[in-house]
């Protein structure tokens, strides 16, 4: 029972910490007065909080301080106080700006979707707690590191630095192990069942972020409907390898999905401060993805390439902010946005990348080192297996993994012009880039192709599901995708 209490304290503290961090973003970007849907605020707070909780522990240990129970309690206390202060302040502002009764009632469809998602999120927590960690990756890669971090109290534990210590992928990032360690430290003992609390929490962060941002960009009905469609994709939940387990694929889907969501949001924005805020959020979450799993680095590159390609294919036009600008100014604007995104992510990732370079390479795949033209040409024949395999996973096995890829195909077929317009083109290119990265990984990996790709393709495709659903939501959206004229009439928390 102590474990459950510790888990609850950990996620409440982390989310409040994320809430204060979000307020900091607004203060720095000068967007404090902009009102946003509560779903978006809490969705982003959950993800920022999880990222910040692990990043702070990492930096703390990186500067030589011990990761103790006192540190974790201090982190919870500080995050809690700051988060509460932000909430009280926001409520005060809200009551000054609005009369409680003057807020518009939520449409029945949005309300119905909220009920469904509320039930699903509660059921996700309940189901997660019904089993301890039991899969290969969750124990061999992440939970073992979490136990070592908890016992040794440092990221520089001699075991983690030793090439013969028995763990899988020693260079995999530490967000999940550090989050699990946080629960162990608060509970006073390691019990991997309660440490799984982070995964349904991230699920909640994902669907709330989607509901909030889509509701703000389109309409509350459409936003909540599409968040429900996303939340009910079986491979995310209730499939056992999704958010019910402590594998890293679902968190990856979450961080990459919400990073792209904010990226997409920034592309719709012509107001500098608000666009900057969305870009910084996208950048932080993309950096978070890199701290979840190594694929995050590939996604960061894919996001960049998709952005550049979408810009190129659109003749220097991508977002709606560019409509009345001349080409050089437009390109300058885009370049500045890309630099903001890339630079901020790079700054956040420096400590981890520096530490990563000191870790052993046992069982690592060494994709970059193996990236040679000769090898790629030699292994071109692997496409004969990997491409049909991917198509089968996406479209034939829909009963098992869900319908997001069919929805994407139907959206593209029913609205081809809209599918290729600005931000949607960017999403489509991200998906194509990510799929290309997967088949290239199959060509480079020093493992048996069918075993390597066949055993991981459903999990990899899961990581792309949020972007696929975002594409569907954008293409089939009932509202025309232009910047909103007035601020959305929603409350802040």
């Amino acid at each position, binding site marked *: 029972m102590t474990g459950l209490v510790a888990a609850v304290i950990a996620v409440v503290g982390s989310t409040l910490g994320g809430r204060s961090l979000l307020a900091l973003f607004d203060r720095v970007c000068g967007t404090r007065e902009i009102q946003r849907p509560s779903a978006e605020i809490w969705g982003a707070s959950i993800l920022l909080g999880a990222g910040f909780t692990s990043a702070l522990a990492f930096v703390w240990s990186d500067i030589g301080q011990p990761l103790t129970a006192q540190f974790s309690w201090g982190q919870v206390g500080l995050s809690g106080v700051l988060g509460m202060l932000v909430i009280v302040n926001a409520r005060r502002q809200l009551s000054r700006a609005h009369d409680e009764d003057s807020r518009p009632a939520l449409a029945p*469809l949005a309300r119905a979707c909220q009920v469904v998602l509320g039930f699903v999120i509660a059921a996700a927590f309940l189901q997660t707690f019904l089993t301890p960690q039991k899969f290969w990756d969750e124990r061999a890669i992440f939970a073992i590191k979490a136990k070592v971090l908890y016992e040794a109290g440092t990221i520089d534990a001699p075991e983690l630095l030793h090439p013969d210590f028995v763990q899988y992928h020693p260079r995999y990032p530490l967000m999940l192990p550090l989050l699990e360690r946080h629960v162990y430290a608060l509970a006073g003992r390691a019990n991997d069942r309660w440490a799984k609390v982070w995964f349904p929490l991230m699920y909640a962060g994902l669907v709330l972020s989607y509901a909030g941002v889509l509701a703000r960009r389109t309409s509350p009905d459409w936003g909540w409907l599409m968040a429900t469609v996303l939340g009910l994709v079986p491979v995310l939940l*209730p499939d056992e390898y999704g958010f019910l387990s402590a594998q890293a694929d679902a968190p990856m889907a979450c961080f990459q999905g919400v990073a792209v969501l904010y990226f997409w949001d920034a592309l719709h924005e012509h107001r500098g401060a608000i666009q900057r805020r969305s870009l910084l959020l996208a950048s932080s979450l993309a950096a978070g993805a890199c701290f979840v799993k190594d694929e995050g680095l590939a996604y960061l590159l894919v996001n960049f390439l998709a952005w550049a390609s979408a810009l190129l294919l659109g003749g220097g036009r991508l977002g709606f902010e560019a409509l009345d600008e001349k080409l050089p100014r437009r390109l300058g604007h885009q370049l500045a946005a890309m630099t903001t995104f890339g630079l901020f992510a790079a700054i956040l990732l420096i400590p981890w990348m520096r530490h990563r370079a000191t870790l052993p390479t046992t069982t690592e795949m060494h994709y970059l080192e193996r990236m040679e033209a000769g090898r790629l040409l030699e292994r071109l024949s692997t496409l004969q297996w990997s491409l049909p395999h991917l198509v089968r996973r996406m479209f034939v096995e829909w009963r098992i993994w869900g319908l997001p890829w069919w929805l994407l195909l139907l959206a593209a077929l029913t609205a081809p012009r809209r599918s290729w317009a600005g931000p949607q083109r960017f999403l489509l290119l991200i998906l194509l880039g990510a799929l290309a990265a997967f088949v290239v990984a199959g060509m480079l990996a020093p493992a048996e192709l069918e075993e390597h790709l066949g055993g991981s393709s459903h999990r990899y495709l899961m990581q792309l599901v949020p972007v696929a659903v975002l594409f569907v939501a954008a293409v089939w959206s009932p509202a025309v995708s232009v910047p909103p004229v007035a601020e959305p009439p929603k409350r802040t928390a």
Partner: protein
Amino acid sequence: MNSAESSQTRSRLTRWACRSLAVTTGFSVLAFALLAGAAWLIPPEVVQNWAFDPSSTDAFAQFEAVGIAEAAQWLAQWAAPVLALVSYLIWRHHARLSLGIEGAVRRFWRVTANPPSLPDSLRFRLVPIVKRVAIGSALALAIGHWGSAFQQRLKDWPYYRFNDGDQVLPNISDANREVIRYLQASTPENARIFVVSDQKLFFLSYYLRPRSLFHRMHPTAEHLIPRANQARQLAAYRLSELPPDVWECRPDFVLEYFEGPEYIDPARATEDRAWLQFARQRTGDSTRVPEYVVVLRRWPITGGSP
């Protein structure tokens, strides 16, 4: 559709939704109340006896059936009263709720409709139908998956309950489980153990913490995934083949643990007397000779088992 038709349809739809909701929830209140009463009144032993099939010889199936019955009764005891209350509240407010449901359906229709700016051609008329069928199918598929997930959780219960992973040692081979228990019994908590093996040792490393396990993986086995029942033999170093730098980890113990036919020497199966005794005690079979080689020694060798 003109406005008069629309309002007529609306009232018909509302009336239908209202009536269906009232009847369904009325029955639900009764059904859940009866279920809750039965779940609390019938003793667990009786329920488990119903689930127990004396004609079956499959011990696992029996164990699972009794555990599922226990979980189902526990669930009924707590969930049925809540569901009865929720059904009652819905029944009480069914008129208002049916209006809400109708509103939600209408909104769904509206958000999936074409914008008025689109031309009225067959192609564009098909688009809303495609959207509604696609989104509806995605939601329907989810309902099926959630039903299966619910069943799966009931099946999981007998195996996991609220036990720690360390207690259950889930989803690993019996051999791994036995070796973990042996090392837990034979080595101190902070021991450093060097393992020579043809197995992937991640689960041993995980469940044996805070003991530290070290292992020099054979380069050809590094990226191979093991298969059930030793169907794939992974290459491994034998103790005599290890490069000298492996001892830099300064182990307190060395474990030789082989399961694959290429590495098993039958003569060594009984070499570690403590292991033999442990394995026999565990199974209650005093003549058992384990099918795999496990030899644990202090390091540097001091002569004999720990």
